[in-house]
């Protein structure tokens, strides 16, 4: 169940799920979408063309530009699903037109890595 829609849109793709918050500026390569923070559980994985599921964004405010750059470089996720909203991810997705929703805790826990899903913010369904 989608609790809140931050950026509207539709997306279809494979779930890439992380347990750890993401500092987009430090941890993500803005050209390729590959996670380069070796302390992160998605280390060396690419977030490109995924439905990225993670708790929330942290750290540098410039992370919003990283999200915009990922989109411009065709390396962005199709959509993002978070547990908690934050300013950096919200504003980055707003400018880049990447659908972003917050889901209930129960829904968040039940989302499985690798699953194919269809997200529609209008009907608030996964």
């Amino acid at each position, binding site marked *: 169940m989608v609790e809140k829609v931050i950026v509207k849109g539709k997306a279809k793709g494979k779930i890439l799920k992380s347990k750890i918050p993401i*500092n987009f500026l430090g941890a993500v390569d803005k050209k390729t979408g590959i996670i380069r923070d070796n302390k992160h559980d998605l280390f060396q994985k690419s977030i490109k063309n995924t439905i990225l599921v993670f708790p929330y964004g942290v750290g540098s405010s410039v992370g919003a530009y990283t999200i915009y*750059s990922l*989109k411009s470089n065709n390396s962005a996720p199709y959509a993002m699903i978070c547990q908690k909203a934050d300013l950096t991810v919200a504003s980055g997705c707003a400018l880049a037109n990447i659908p972003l929703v917050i889901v209930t805790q129960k829904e968040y826990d039940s989302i499985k890595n690798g699953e194919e899903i269809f997200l529609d913010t209008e009907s608030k369904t996964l």
Partner: protein
Amino acid sequence: MELTKDEESALKGEKGEVLELAYRILVATGEAINADRLVPIQWAHLSGVNYNTIGDAGEEFLSKLSKDAKVQVKTTVNPMGFDIDTVSDYNLDDDFIKKQQSISDSYKKMGVLPSFSCIPYEIFDLPQKNTQVSFAESNAAIYANSIAQLKTNKESAFSALASALTGKSPYSDLRKEEPDSPNLTIQMKVKNSNELTYGLLGYFAGKIAGSSVRISGASNLDKRSCKALCGGMGTSGQCGKFVLDDNDNQSEKVDFDNKEMQNIFDELNTTDSGDLVVLGSPQLGLEEISDLALMLKGRSFKKRCMIFCPRAIQQQASDLGYANTLKRAGCEMLYDCCTCLTPLIDKDNVDGVITNSIKGAYYLKNSNDVKVNLKPLSQIIDDETKW
């Protein structure tokens, strides 16, 4: 979020593309932080200036935006990638310099003050208590809320830009005159603390706190420790404010002891030595430069040492003789730029960086791929300088 008729019309694009974009960002961020309305702000401080961080996509975006956009309130900006006066000493490619200058020109065209500093709270006069501002730089937002008695969200680069272009920002908990009491208290248990300990405490607090946190056992911080705490906290989390308060209260309590400190240290300290000393993340203001000049009198560094400062203090640092003392000690003084994500430190030329900055360490490690050795300033002076 409730919008006024005017705001609604701007969001629909009836007042041009720039405002449509700005309101789209404000509405998304307002939803994200549960704001019910937009409020006027007096001062915006923008991040997203260094070409190293925003890249070609950012440079092109700003260049296009600046054709029509003008800031509506006092707007200052974060450091860029280099100091134009010394850039030729650093072997930076021409394309970087060109793109950086384009970014800088775009901001100037929009009407910002070219401050290129991450410590606006130290180089500009502070407005009166409870003034609403929008600071994107994370250490500056935390400093504004926690020390300078101003009110800001922990803004993002785009939310602060949208605030600059509209003079408005979403009204979140952090903006309330009587903010909610933090529901978490971190009890500082580390003895003999210094700025490095406070940076580590900040990084620890940022990881576990919500939008604000209470810290007990940490009163009377000097400016260096205060800035380190803000910098560390801004790097690891979402937290936008701390309250230093030793009074007992009902909130959940977590200890920051030697063991917790060691865990964070081990996460960020990746080597035991280095060949370059770097100071200034956040940038050093006049007070810290004056301290440093005193500590370095008659001494000189055995290794290269880079010091990052705002341009605003250059004249005074020179007039008061500090710049000279530091240069004689072998320091390279750099203005307008900062340790974080500087292109001037490259893993191919540097084995390891020695610094007292947690924020610097995080970005040097993750973005510049450089190894980092963390030490407090007093130990850096002891180990890395000679009479």
